[in-house]
């Protein structure tokens, strides 16, 4: 299929893998973090690690929109959805994320009106069709989805809609990357930069990673060959002693980002002083809220939320997984108490979560796979 198969060509993958292997210095171990959950998903879905030499380890980063939502915010959302005449709209990814009293799916089964939408704009349609209801959109995600929420709010204002509001949980990627770089637990050799976030913010915001921390960054696309090529580019930089920001995903990402999208965000939203991230704790200036001028569309202002901070279950090690300190299977409850059907931690929920990706796609013995390969006629 055009625009798909050319990015999944096994011959090209073999060729790239050979060049990556040639660049490995004997005895040296390489650790690269793919920041974005979309990359984690691609890596597991296509079995990309089969192409990497043992010296290269991929560490899964915090860029999974659903994974970073703390339990307290899920509780707040369910509180909003339970208010009289409220219809809550949400992306499907959010439906299974556990709060302290269960997930959106559980709340829906118990009678609240929570509907899945594919675009925030669908919420406006629902609001117009239900003038006697109050529609609240559960807005989540990094800079990839923030512009569409901002545009939806602008559209709602232009339409004069009075029964639509946003529960804003948008977060920004740079503070999370900085938190990881400053964390003493992890020694990384480079970053596979988030592709779709960069379509909005461009590549410049990563320059501090290369300049101040001396780590190379390659902004990557989401097809398996994109990621493999990005690993190759990282290896080339390391072998030449360079640390720069490079853009592998030029077919989508402009170096300076999308000015129109950034303008829309800036018009509607501002940085919060701080925001709690699941497992990472409070990070300053790491999330967005609606500006004063748009308070008529801010569900937190209109309804009020309990805002109770709920501590993660002690056994849950999502924070360590999000920071890349633990591999999914190294978490004590991985696959036993915490599974995709009854997730305790968020990393087990979204298809972009490292634990879910590993559980659903990677839960096998590499050693035995090799044996199976050899035994095939």
């Amino acid at each position, binding site marked *: 299929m055009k625009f798909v198969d050319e990015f999944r060509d096994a011959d090209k993958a073999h060729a790239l893998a050979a060049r990556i292997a040639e660049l490995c210095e004997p005895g040296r171990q390489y650790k690269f973090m793919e920041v974005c959950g979309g990359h984690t998903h691609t890596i597991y879905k296509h*079995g990309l690690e089969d192409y990497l030499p043992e010296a290269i380890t991929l560490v899964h980063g915090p860029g999974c929109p659903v994974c970073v939502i703390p339990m307290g915010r899920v509780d707040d959302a369910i509180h909003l959805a339970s208010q009289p005449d409220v219809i809550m709209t949400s992306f*499907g990814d959010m439906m*299974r994320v556990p709060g302290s009293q269960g997930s959106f*799916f559980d*709340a829906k*089964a118990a009678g609240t009106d929570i509907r899945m939408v594919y675009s925030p704009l669908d919420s406006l349609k629902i609001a117009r069709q239900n003038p006697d209801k109050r529609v609240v959109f559960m807005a989540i995600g990094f800079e990839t989805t923030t512009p569409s929420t901002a545009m939806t709010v602008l559209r709602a204002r232009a339409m004069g809609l009075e029964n639509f509001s946003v529960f804003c949980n948008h977060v920004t990627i740079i503070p999370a990357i900085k938190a990881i770089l400053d964390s003493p637990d992890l020694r990384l050799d480079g970053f596979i930069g988030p592709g779709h976030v960069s379509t909005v913010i461009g590549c410049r915001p990563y320059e501090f990673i290369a300049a101040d921390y001396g780590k190379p960054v390659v902004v990557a696309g989401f097809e*398996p060959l994109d990621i493999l090529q990005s690993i190759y580019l990282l290896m080339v930089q390391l072998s030449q002693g360079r640390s720069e920001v490079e853009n592998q995903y030029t077919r989508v990402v402009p170096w300076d980002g999308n000015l129109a999208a950034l303008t829309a965000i800036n018009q509607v939203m501002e940085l919060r002083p701080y925001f709690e991230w699941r497992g990472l704790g409070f990070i300053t200036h790491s999330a967005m809220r609606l500006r004063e001028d748009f308070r008529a569309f801010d569900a937190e202002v209109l309804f009020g939320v309990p805002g109770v901070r709920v501590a993660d279950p002690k056994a849950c090690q999502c924070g360590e997984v999000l920071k890349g300190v633990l591999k999914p*299977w190294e978490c004590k409850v991985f696959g036993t108490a915490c599974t995709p059907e009854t997730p305790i931690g968020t990393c087990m929920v979204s298809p972009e979560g490292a634990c879910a990706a590993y559980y659903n796609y990677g839960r096998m013995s590499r*050693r035995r796979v090799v044996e*199976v390969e050899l035994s095939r006629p």
Partner: protein
Amino acid sequence: MTGRGTNWVDEALREHEEHAAEDATAASRAAGQAGSAGAPSDREQQVLDRIERARRRRPRIREERITMSHGAGGKATQTLIEAVFLDAFRNPLLEPLEDAAQLRVGGARIALTTDSYVVSPLFFPGGNIGDLAVNGTVNDLAVSGATPLYLSAGFVLEEGFPVADLTTIVASMTAAAAAAGVQIVTGDTKVVERGKADGCYINTAGVGVVEHDLDLGAATARPGDAVIVSGPVGDHGVTIMLARGELDIEADLSSDTAPMNTMIAGLLGAVPGVRAMRDATRGGVATILNEVAVAAGVGVIVEEDQIPVRTQVRGAAELLGIDPMYVACEGRLVAVVDDGQAERALAALHAHPLGEQAAVIGHITADQPGIVLLKTAFGGTRIVDLLVGDPLPRIC
């Protein structure tokens, strides 16, 4: 207010603690055998073994209420069936959980099955709920190796439902029954108040007769066997999703709903080495392969680039982030066949219009029991697990 008990996390963790001791014993035993328990690959293997033990434990429902996942055909459905229905109704005829039960009545071997249809929308390209209700039950009988004979039809109708629509649905059922060579011989009608149902739901039950001595069943799959699908996968599910009109995607695609009984009769007549057949409905081909892997205690290796998928289905699935292997079909057979007879089986399927694109998509192996492995078109390896969430509710 909420679906789960307030202490569901505690409960899950308590269970985890209870099993931890047992796991520790198993782990130290494994360590003793392996010699070097400290190596990361061995530690990872221990975790995998622990998960396998956790997955084999008796399933329990943690939710206090039914959620849409319980109807999705994946893990939650399986847990509901095993923890609630099988636990209560348990008997040797029910236990294999095949598409139809096999009974002996007098001297005859009879197959009995039932299925309810709640598809939304009721009318879609390639058919409507009526075709589906007849073909689905015919197929459940056919894949169990029976010749379908008689069907029942039960209707739950919502107050206000247009009679003209009902007439159209019933006409489709008549035509589908004639095409499959079965008769609808008994039925039932209920009407509920407006808002208490969504237009029209249909239940059909069917009986058929088993006229051969083959011992068919997922548990009989053996290492080396070939895995065959009878045609492109995912047409029905994607058609329904697009017919809902929520996605603003248009594609030249229609449902694959069809009776497979003549195609299956042709296959069984030509090839004695058929071990198991399944109808790839909810949960798709992936779910069936997992059922085979667990029932027979074998592994399944599938080659991604051998799975027939229409470009329209693949395109829609790529856009929506779903995997065609999990998307429902309503006229597609998954068969496990003795490898030596795979070519003959393919020839028999190719001879039928429904099976023109039949293909061998993989093999059964003795390694990795209980696990379905996919060799991706990209050249990597991953597992194919049961689906948890439900991207497509009310598909049939």
